[in-house]
């Protein structure tokens, strides 16, 4: 923008812009990039601003500082606060899916595609709310419609389900179909050793009546 002036005011405005940028950025920013964004006359000027900010944070006892990482600069909390900050994130992990939702998710994952009625037969409770939550969280979706009265919606898990379960090595994973075959889910004893389910519909132990 302006000519390369050496007034303190100009330096201060570059410093404030650099600070706002480092503050808002989710990735480290290189000095050249900061120069381009702020219109600073040179990367050197940006580095001076970073130096001044860094000194100021140290002297005024801020809880954060500037670190140089991956070829750029980034604001980060001081290591001494890692305890309190990790408590913040630990607490957050808890707010994921509720346990009833997880249970329903497990059933969908292993019995998909499955209707709401079938899920409720297994869980023994109404699943409307949890299904809505799971759909909203995009871990399951309606994958089709079943036979029979009212052609019920069928639910299946989504790709996001795998992500949610913390799956990093995506490509290596067997498909759910494959899993199902491996786990031989539907392979029941040829002669049932106990009477077929129906007289204990509330137990969650007899989900297999829908087999083949």
């Amino acid at each position, binding site marked *: 923008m302006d000519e390369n002036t050496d007034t303190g005011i100009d330096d201060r405005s570059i410093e404030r812009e650099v600070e*706002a940028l480092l*503050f*808002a*950025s*989710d*990735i480290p920013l290189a000095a050249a990039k900061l120069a381009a964004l702020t219109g600073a006359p040179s990367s050197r000027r940006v580095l001076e601003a970073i130096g001044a900010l860094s000194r100021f944070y140290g002297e005024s006892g801020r809880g954060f500082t500037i670190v140089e990482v991956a070829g750029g600069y980034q*604001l*980060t*909390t001081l*290591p001494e606060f*890692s*305890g309190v*900050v*990790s*408590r913040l*994130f*630990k*607490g957050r*992990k*808890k707010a*994921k899916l509720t*346990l*009833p939702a*997880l*249970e329903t*998710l*497990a*059933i969908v994952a*292993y019995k998909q595609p499955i209707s709401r009625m079938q899920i409720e037969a*297994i*869980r*023994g*409770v109404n699943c409307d709310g949890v299904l809505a939550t799971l759909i909203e969280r995009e871990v399951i979706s309606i994958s089709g419609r079943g036979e029979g009265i009212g052609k019920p919606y069928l639910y299946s898990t989504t790709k996001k389900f795998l992500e949610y*379960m*913390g*799956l*990093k*090595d995506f490509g*290596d*994973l*067997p498909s759910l179909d494959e*899993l199902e075959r*491996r*786990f*031989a*889910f539907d*392979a*029941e*004893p040829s002669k*049932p*050793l*106990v009477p077929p389910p129906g007289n*204990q519909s*509330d*137990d*969650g*132990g*007899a*989900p*297999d009546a829908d087999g083949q």
Partner: protein
Amino acid sequence: MTYQVRLVQFEGPLDLLLHLIRRDKINIYDIPISHITREYLGYIEIMQELELEVAGEFFVMAATLMRIKSQMLLPRHEGFEEEEADPREELVRNLLEYRKFKEAAHHLASKEEDRRKVFPRTAATPPAEEPADEGFEVSLYDLLEALQSVFKNINQQAVYHVVPDSVTVEQKIEAIRATLARRSEVLFTELFIGEFAKIEIIVTFLAILEMIKLGELVARQMSHAADIWLYKPGVDSYIDANGSPNG
């Protein structure tokens, strides 16, 4: 002609009607229905001439307007005017209701505009966890493999057990927590001992996964195909479900 520009901006029939009411300085509580119907139909015609897609709702409203218009033409019974409903009543109520929310939308738009000028922190990078001590952490894939052998095991036993009551993931988590309170480590397969119903095994498995996600459990093995052990990670800054510090 500003018509074309404006036309596409109408979000629906109510929006168009409010525009006409404002433009012609009409008293919303006493809408001249013939006038407004004529103007409304005129707009729809133009939309069609311009080959703009006219949503079905616009035609429904056109029919409504014409019905009200014809009702207004019916002779009124003398003396019963008080009790007779004005045919415009419902439409006016809808317009008033919609107008409030249109105003609310404009308010939100200005709040949105203000908020977009400021930027919160985005780099929510949790601090690095302590490094693994022995062995390596297993992936979900390894856990699924292990689960597979659990299933194989019960299939061989060919026993069909019924779970007395539906077991919840929550209960399983509690049970595993209790086990780990007594011992520092437990074998993965050990947690399934005595479980024969598929749903119960799945629930146990889910409980293990959830605890790993929550950082309450670490699954490790010394080599591939070795036994998987579950450990409690460092217990220093553990927080219970209520979010209160506990360590």
